[in-house]
C-alpha cells in the first residue's frame, strides 16, 4: 500500500494525539485501587479485582480502608510517611486484604499520589530477601566498574548486559536519539535466537511525542504480555475530577493498541523500557524485548530503574566532561588566533598566519575570510565568485546571529551552484558596520542509514496509524548533507566573533584617537606654515630688496668682488624665498580637498612641454610621448603639478646629454594605470632610491643641479593622495625612470 505524504502525516499526528496517559484501563498483571485519602475510602477500582480478590468491583467502591486491609493503622502510618514530592510509585511493602478469596495473602503494594487521589497498585508479593541478595551486589558491581575513561558506548554496552542479567529478557538494546528524534541502536545484549538490531536506526515516528513525554515523567515501563486483555477501571472516571484517571505514573498503565501491534509485528510479546534522561531531555532508551510473555518483578524493575538513573547521570557527566574538554581546546585555539591578530594588528593578517587553527577549531575543511573587497580562502572552498555571493546573501541576515547549515541546497536555495562544492556552511559577521565575514565550509558527506524496516507506516482505512510489519534492514543513502555543526561549534564561533569585534572596536578607537592627534598636528602645521609665510618671507624679502637697492645705488662704488657678493646675497635670498614658497605649497597639498575629474594625460604633457619650452629650447631634446596616453580620473591641478615636477626633473637632469631623450608612456597592471617618465640623463645611485621621495632629500650637489629637494616629495604626496604609488629605477649615468601608479576609478 502506497501512502500519500499527507495521509501519513495525518496519521502520525492522529497517533500523537492519542491520549495514552488516560487509557481508562490497566494491564492485568496486577490490580489497582483509587483511594480518597481524606475520606479514607476506596473510590475507583480496576475490574480485575474480581480475578485477583474474587470481589465484585462495586463491593469495594465506598469501602473504608480499615474494612479492606489488615493492620490498617500500619498502612496509614506508611502513607503518612510518603514523600510528597515523589510522583513515581512508592513501594510501601506487603499488605494483606481482609475480604475476598485472597484474604490473608501477601500482596506487594505501590502507591503514588496524582490526579487528586492516591493510586494504589498491587502485585503478588515476591521474595524480598532474594531481591536484596541479588540486586544489590549486581548494582554494586555495575557502579564500581564505572570510570572516567569508559566511553559512553562502552557504558551503554555494560548497562544492557546488566539489565539483561537482572531481567532475563532475550534482547536488551540501548539507543540514542539524534537531533531529529531518530534512535540509533548503539549497544545490545541478546540471546542466540534473537535477531540483532545493533547499528539500526528507528525512525522518530516510532515514539510519538506524547509517548516521549511519558518516558520523561515515568522512567520505566513494562508490558508483560502484548496480548493482554486490558482491565477497565470502575467507574470509568476519577470521581474526584469527573474525568478519566490520569495514569501517567502508574506502573500498570495500559498502552496504545498501536504499540501492542508494533510489538507483535516485531515478534516480541514482552517489553520493558528504561528512560535515559540527560539534562532533562530524553537522551535514549534501554529497551528490552522477549519473544514470549515475561514477568518483571517489582524488585527487578526497581533495580533497572536505579541502573537507568545511574546511567543517565554518568552519560550526563561524561558529556559535560567531553564538552568542557572541547570548549577548553576551542578557547585555546581562539586565543591563538586572537594573539596573532593582535600581533599584526589585523584580523585578516592574523588569520593568515594560522590557517590550520582557523580550519581545525570547528573541524572545517575550508574557510573564507571576507573583509571589504578582499577574500582570503583556506583549504577546500567554493569558487571565489560563489563565496562573494554567499557573503552578499549573509549580509541580508541579522549580523548578530551565527548562520549554520549542514545542507545548503535546502537552506540557501538562492545559490544552487554553492551546493556543488560544499554542503555545510558556518558563518559569522566580524564587523558591526561592514559586510565582513568568516565562513567555514564542510563537504558533502554521503551517509548510509540502516533503518530497522522501511521507515514508513501504513494507514488503516480508518485513518489511524498501523505499524510496519517488517523490521528487516532497509538501507537509505542520505545526500546533500555535511557533518552537522554542533552547538559547541556555534558557541566557539560566537566567542571568536565577540573577541574579534573587541579587537576591531579597540582598533577603531585607536584610529579615532590617531585621527584626533593628526587633526591637531595638522592645525599646528597650518599655524606653522602661516607663521613661516609671514615671519620667514619678510626678512628674505628685505635682504633681497636692500641688496638690490645697494647694488642699484652704490653698485658703481663697489669692487667686482663686492658686486659678486651682493649678487650672491640676492640669489640666496631669492632661493630661500622659493624654498619657503615650495614648502608652503607642499604642506597645502596634504590639506586641500581633492577634486576628481577626467584628466587627458596627452593634453597635460603637451601643455607642460609648452610651458617649459624656455628651459630647453636651446638644447637638442627628443620627446617620445606615447599616443594615446590614458585618460585618468584625478585632481587635474595636483596631477599637473606632479607631472610638471617629473618632466622638469627629466629636462634638468638631461641637461648634459646630446641628444637628450625623454619618454613618457603607460601600461596597465593589477587594475592600476602605471605612467612612467624615462630620461637618458645622469640618473642616480639606487642605493639612495629610498631617500629620493623625501622632503629636502637631494642626490646632487647644488652647483651640478639646482633644486630645493621638495619636487619629488610633492610628487609622492600628490600620488599618494590619489591612493597611488611612486617608485623609480636608475643606474648612475644611464638615465632614470620614474613611475607612478593610479588606481582605476569607476
Amino acid at each position, binding site marked *: 500500500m502506497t501512502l500519500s505524504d499527507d495521509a501519513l502525516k495525518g496519521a502520525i499526528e492522529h497517533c500523537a494525539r492519542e491520549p495514552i496517559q488516560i487509557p481508562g484501563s490497566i494491564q492485568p498483571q496486577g490490580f489497582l485501587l483509587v483511594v480518597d485519602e481524606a475520606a479514607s475510602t476506596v473510590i475507583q477500582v480496576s475490574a480485575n479485582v474480581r480475578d485477583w480478590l474474587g470481589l465484585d468491583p462495586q463491593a469495594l467502591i465506598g469501602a473504608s480502608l480499615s474494612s479492606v486491609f489488615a493492620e490498617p493503622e500500619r498502612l496509614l502510618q506508611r502513607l503518612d510517611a510518603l514523600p510528597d514530592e515523589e510522583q513515581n510509585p512508592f513501594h510501601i511493602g506487603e499488605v494483606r486484604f481482609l475480604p475476598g478469596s485472597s484474604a490473608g495473602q501477601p500482596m506487594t503494594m505501590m502507591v503514588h499520589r496524582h490526579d487528586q487521589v492516591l493510586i494504589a497498585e498491587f502485585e503478588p508479593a515476591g521474595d524480598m530477601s532474594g531481591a536484596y541478595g541479588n540486586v544489590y551486589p549486581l548494582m554494586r558491581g555495575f557502579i564500581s566498574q564505572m570510570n572516567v575513561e569508559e566511553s559512553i558506548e562502552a557504558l551503554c554496552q555494560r548497562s544492557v548486559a546488566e539489565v539483561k542479567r537482572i531481567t532475563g529478557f532475550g534482547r536488551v538494546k540501548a539507543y540514542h536519539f539524534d537531533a531529529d528524534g531518530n534512535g540509533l541502536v548503539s549497544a545490545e545484549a541478546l540471546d542466540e535466537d534473537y535477531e540483532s538490531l545493533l547499528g539500526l536506526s528507528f525512525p522518530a515516528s516510532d515514539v510519538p511525542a506524547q509517548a516521549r513525554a511519558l518516558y520523561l515523567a515515568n522512567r520505566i515501563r513494562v508490558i508483560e504480555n502484548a496480548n493482554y486483555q486490558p482491565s477497565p477501571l470502575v467507574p470509568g472516571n476519577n470521581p474526584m475530577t469527573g474525568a478519566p484517571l490520569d495514569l501517567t505514573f502508574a506502573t500498570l498503565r495500559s498502552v496504545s493498541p498501536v504499540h501492542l501491534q508494533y510489538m507483535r509485528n516485531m515478534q516480541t510479546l514482552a517489553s520493558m523500557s528504561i528512560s535515559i534522561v540527560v539534562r532533562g531531555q530524553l537522551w535514549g532508551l534501554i529497551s528490552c524485548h522477549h519473544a514470549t510473555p515475561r514477568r518483571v518483578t517489582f524488585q527487578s524493575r526497581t533495580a533497572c530503574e536505579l541502573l537507568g538513573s545511574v546511567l543517565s547521570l554518568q552519560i550526563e557527566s561524561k558529556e559535560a566532561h567531553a564538552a568542557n574538554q572541547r570548549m577548553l581546546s576551542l578557547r585555546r585555539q581562539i586565543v591563538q588566533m586572537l594573539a596573532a591578530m593582535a600581533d599584526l594588528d589585523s584580523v585578516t593578517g592574523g588569520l593568515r598566519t594560522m590557517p590550520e587553527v582557523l580550519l581545525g577549531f570547528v573541524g572545517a575543511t575550508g574557510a573564507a575570510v571576507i573583509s571589504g573587497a578582499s577574500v582570503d580562502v583556506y583549504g577546500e572552498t567554493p569558487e571565489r565568485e560563489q563565496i562573494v555571493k554567499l557573503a552578499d546573501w549573509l549580509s541580508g541576515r541579522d549580523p548578530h546571529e551565527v548562520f549554520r547549515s549542514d545542507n545548503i541546497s535546502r537552506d540557501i536555495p538562492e545559490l544552487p551552484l554553492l551546493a556543488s562544492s560544499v554542503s555545510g556552511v558556518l558563518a559569522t559577521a566580524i564587523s558591526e558596520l561592514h559586510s565582513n565575514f568568516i565562513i567555514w565550509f564542510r563537504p558533502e558527506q554521503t551517509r548510509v542509514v540502516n533503518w530497522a524496516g522501511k521507515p514508513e507506516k501504513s494507514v488503516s482505512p480508518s485513518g489511524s496509524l498501523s505499524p510496519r510489519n517488517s523490521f528487516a534492514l532497509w538501507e537509505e543513502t542520505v545526500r546533500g548533507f555535511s557533518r552537522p555543526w554542533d552547538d559547541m561549534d556555534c558557541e566557539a564561533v560566537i566567542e571568536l566573533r565577540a573577541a574579534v569585534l573587541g579587537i576591531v572596536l579597540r582598533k577603531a578607537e585607536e584610529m579615532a584617537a590617531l585621527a584626533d592627534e593628526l587633526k591637531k598636528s595638522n592645525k599646528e602645521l597650518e599655524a606653522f606654515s602661516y607663521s613661516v609665510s609671514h615671519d620667514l618671507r619678510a626678512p628674505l624679502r628685505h635682504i633681497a*630688496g636692500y641688496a638690490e637697492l645697494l647694488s642699484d645705488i652704490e653698485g658703481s662704488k663697489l669692487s667686482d668682488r663686492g658686486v659678486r657678493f651682493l649678487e650672491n646675497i640676492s640669489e640666496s635670498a631669492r632661493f630661500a624665498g622659493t624654498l619657503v614658497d615650495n614648502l608652503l605649497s607642499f604642506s597645502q597639498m596634504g590639506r586641500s580637498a581633492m577634486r576628481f575629474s577626467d584628466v587627458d594625460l596627452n593634453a597635460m604633457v603637451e601643455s607642460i612641454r609648452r610651458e617649459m619650452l624656455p628651459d630647453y629650447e636651446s638644447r637638442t631634446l627628443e620627446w617620445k610621448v606615447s599616443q594615446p596616453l590614458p585618460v585618468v580620473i584625478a585632481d587635474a591641478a595636483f596631477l599637473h603639478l606632479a607631472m610638471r615636477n617629473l618632466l622638469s626633473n627629466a629636462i634638468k637632469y638631461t641637461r648634459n646629454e646630446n641628444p637628450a631623450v625623454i619618454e613618457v608612456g603607460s601600461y596597465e597592471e593589477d587594475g592600476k594605470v602605471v605612467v612612467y617618465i624615462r630620461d637618458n640623463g645622469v640618473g642616480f645611485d639606487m642605493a639612495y632610491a629610498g631617500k629620493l621621495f623625501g622632503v629636502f632629500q637631494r642626490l646632487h650637489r647644488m652647483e651640478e643641479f639646482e633644486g630645493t629637494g621638495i619636487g619629488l616629495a610633492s610628487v609622492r604626496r600628490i600620488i599618494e593622495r590619489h591612493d597611488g604609488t611612486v617608485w623609480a629605477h636608475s643606474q648612475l649615468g644611464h638615465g632614470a625612470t620614474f613611475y607612478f601608479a593610479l588606481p582605476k576609478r569607476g
Partner: protein
Amino acid sequence: MLKPILLVEDNPNDLELTLVALERSQLANEVIVLRDGAEALDYLLRRNHHHDRVAGNPAVMLLDLKLPKVDGLEVLKVIRETEELRSIPVVMLTSSREEPDLNRAYSLGVNAYVVKPVEFKEFVSAISDLGVFWAVLNEPPPGSLRLARRPGS
C-alpha cells in the same frame, strides 16, 4: 591737487622698500604713511591726531594685512561700512598667497591685492602698476574690478 596715496605699513623695512617702489613709479601723488590700523582709522575718520587734516579721501589705500592694534581686515571693514569712505580703492598687501585671510579680504570687498615678492624688481613693478591704475585712473566704483597681480605671472 592730486589726492594722496595712503600707505599703512608697520614693518620699517617693508615701509622703506615700498616707498622706494612708489618713488620709482614716479607718481606725483603725495604718500601719506600710517603705521598701524588705529592710526589709519584716525586719519580716515579725521579724529584724534588727524582731526584737523584737510578733508577728502585718498586716491588709493595700500593696506598691509597684518597690522598692530587694528589689523588690515578690520580697517577694510570699517571703510566698507562707512558711507563717506566706501568708495576708497583698497589694495591689500600680503606676505604670502597662502594667506587664509585673503578670502576674508575678498568678501569684505578689497579691490586688489599684492603678494609682496621676494624679488624687489617685481615688487617695484607691481606697486607702480597698481599706483598708476588707482591713483591716475582713480574713479571706478568700488568692487568693480579685482586685480590680482602675482609675481611671475
